C-alpha cells in the first residue's frame, strides 16, 4: 500500500508543490494582514484570498481528474492488477494521496493560525473559543476540499466527455458558497460528509466494476 501511495505522490508531485506554494502565500498574507491591521483596513488582504480559493476549487478536482484520467488513458491500473495489488488498494492509494495533498495545504495554514492566535490573542478566557473556531474552520475547509477532490475522481473516470467534466467543476463552485451560506459548523460538515460519501461510493462502484 505504501508503495502505491508513494507512486501516486511521485506521479502527481506538481499538485503537492502547488498546495505548498498556495499555503505559503496564504500564510504570508495572514501575517501581513495582522501587521498592517493596526494602520489600515485588512479587507484588502481578504480580497486577495478569493483567487486562492478559486485556485483551490479548480486545483483539487483537477488533481482527482488527473489521477483517474491518466490511469484510464495509460492503463496503469490494468498493469498494476498484474502485480500483487487489488483494484480496491489502487483506488484507496489514490484517495489517500488526495487527502495528503489537501493536508499539505491545510496543516501549515492551521499551524500558522494557531501560532498567530497565541501571539496576538493570548488571553486565556477567549483562547478556547478561538481554538474551537479554528477546529471548525479546519474541518469545514478540509471537507470542502475533499468533496471537490472526490468530484474530480468521479469525473476523471467517466472518460473524456466534456459535459461531466464541466458539470463537476460547476458543482465544485457551488460547494464553496455553501460554507458562506451555512457558515462553519456541524451543519455544513454533515452536508459535506454526505456529499463525499455519495461521491466516493459512486467512484468506488465504477472503478471496481468497469474494464481496466
Amino acid at each position: 500500500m505504501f508503495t502505491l501511495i508513494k507512486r501516486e505522490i511521485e506521479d502527481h508531485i506538481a499538485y503537492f508543490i502547488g498546495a505548498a506554494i498556495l499555503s505559503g502565500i496564504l500564510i504570508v498574507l495572514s501575517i501581513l494582514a495582522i501587521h498592517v491591521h493596526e494602520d489600515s483596513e485588512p479587507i484588502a488582504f481578504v480580497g486577495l484570498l478569493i483567487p486562492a480559493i478559486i485556485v483551490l476549487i479548480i486545483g483539487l478536482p483537477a488533481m482527482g481528474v488527473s489521477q483517474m484520467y491518466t490511469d484510464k488513458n495509460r492503463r496503469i491500473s490494468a498493469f498494476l492488477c498484474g502485480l500483487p495489488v487489488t483494484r480496491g488498494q489502487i483506488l484507496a492509494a489514490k484517495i489517500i494521496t488526495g487527502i495528503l495533498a489537501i493536508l499539505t495545504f491545510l496543516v501549515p495554514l492551521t499551524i500558522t493560525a494557531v501560532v498567530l492566535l497565541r501571539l496576538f490573542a493570548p488571553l486565556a478566557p477567549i483562547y478556547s473559543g478561538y481554538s474551537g473556531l479554528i477546529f471548525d474552520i479546519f474541518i469545514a475547509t478540509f471537507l470542502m476540499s475533499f468533496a471537490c477532490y472526490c468530484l474530480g475522481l468521479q469525473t476523471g473516470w467517466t472518460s473524456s466527455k466534456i459535459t461531466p467534466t464541466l458539470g463537476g467543476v460547476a458543482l465544485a463552485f457551488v460547494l464553496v458558497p455553501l460554507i458562506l451560506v451555512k457558515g462553519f459548523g456541524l451543519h455544513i460538515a454533515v452536508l459535506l460528509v454526505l456529499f463525499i460519501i455519495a461521491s466516493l461510493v459512486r467512484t468506488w462502484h465504477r472503478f471496481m466494476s468497469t474494464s481496466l
Partner: protein
Amino acid sequence: MDENVIRVENLVKYFDGRCVLDGINLKVPQGCIYGLLGRNAAGKTTIIRILLGLEPPTRGQTFLLGAESTNLSAKVHGQIGYVAEGHNLIQNYKVGRLVKLCKALSPQWNDEFFNHLTETFRLPMDRKVRELSIGMRAKLNLSLAMATEPEVLILDDPTLGLDTVARRQFLELAIDVIQKQGRTILFSSHILGDVERIADRIGIIAAGKLVVDCGLEELKERVKKLRLIFPESAPANLHLKEIINQQNEGREMVITVVNWNQQKQALVDVFKPSSCTEIPMSLEDIFIECTKPNPESIACS
C-alpha cells in the same frame, strides 16, 4: 485447492450487443501448458482479461487458483504472472523505475533471475518505456512477469513483436519455467509453431465457442487428412459424419475428418478407393480446418 488452476464456467461476453464468447467452458489443470488459439478477435484476450478480473463477464464465472476472478485477492494476484497483448506497461516511466515499482510490490521477486533476464535481453534501465521498441517492451514485460516467480503464467500473445532470436530465447525461458514443478501456463499466440513446441493441451475458439479442447497429441490423432484415389471419378458424397473439409478433383478426393476410426474406414471402403493415404497435418493445418465456418462438428472432449 482445486486441481484445476484455471476454471471457466459457461462464460458469455457481449460487447455492444455482439456476442464474443458464447458459453465457454474450460479447465486447465496444475502443471499444464495450455495453448489458446483463435483467429483475430476470436475472444482469446477477452477470456484472459476476464480471468484476471480486468473485464467483467456478461454471464458465467471464471476462477484462478480457486478464487473467483471478480474477487481476486492481492495474494492470488501475486501468484500470477501476466504478459498483456501489446505489452501494457506504464509508458512514461523509466525502465529502472518500473522495475523498482514491480519489485516493491512483489513479495516473491527473484532479483537474481531478473538480473539474468535483463542481461540476456540487454534491457536498458535508463530509458523510458515509451522509447523502447515493441520487441524490447515485450522482453521487459516477459522479464517482469517471470521475475515474480508465478504459480500461473498467463501470456497473451507474448512473442508479438519479437524477432526470431528473441522468440527462441523466450521459448527457452518458458521451458525453464515449466521445468519448475507445478507451474501452469496459459498461452495465446498466433505463431502456431511456438504453441506446438511448448503446449501440451490446445483450445481453439471459433465463433465464440471453444471448438477444440484436448491434448495436442490427441488432437493430431483425432483430426486426419486423407487422400483417396478412386478407379473412376471420385464420388460426390462419402456419407461420412464429421467431415470438415472435402475437395474433389477427377479421381482424387482429399478429406479432413474428425474421429477417424475403423467404422469410418469401412464406410469409405464401400466406395472401393484404389488407395487411401494419410497426409500429415501440422497444428497450423488443423487450426485452419477448425476455424472454418460450422466449427461445431469438430469439437472434441
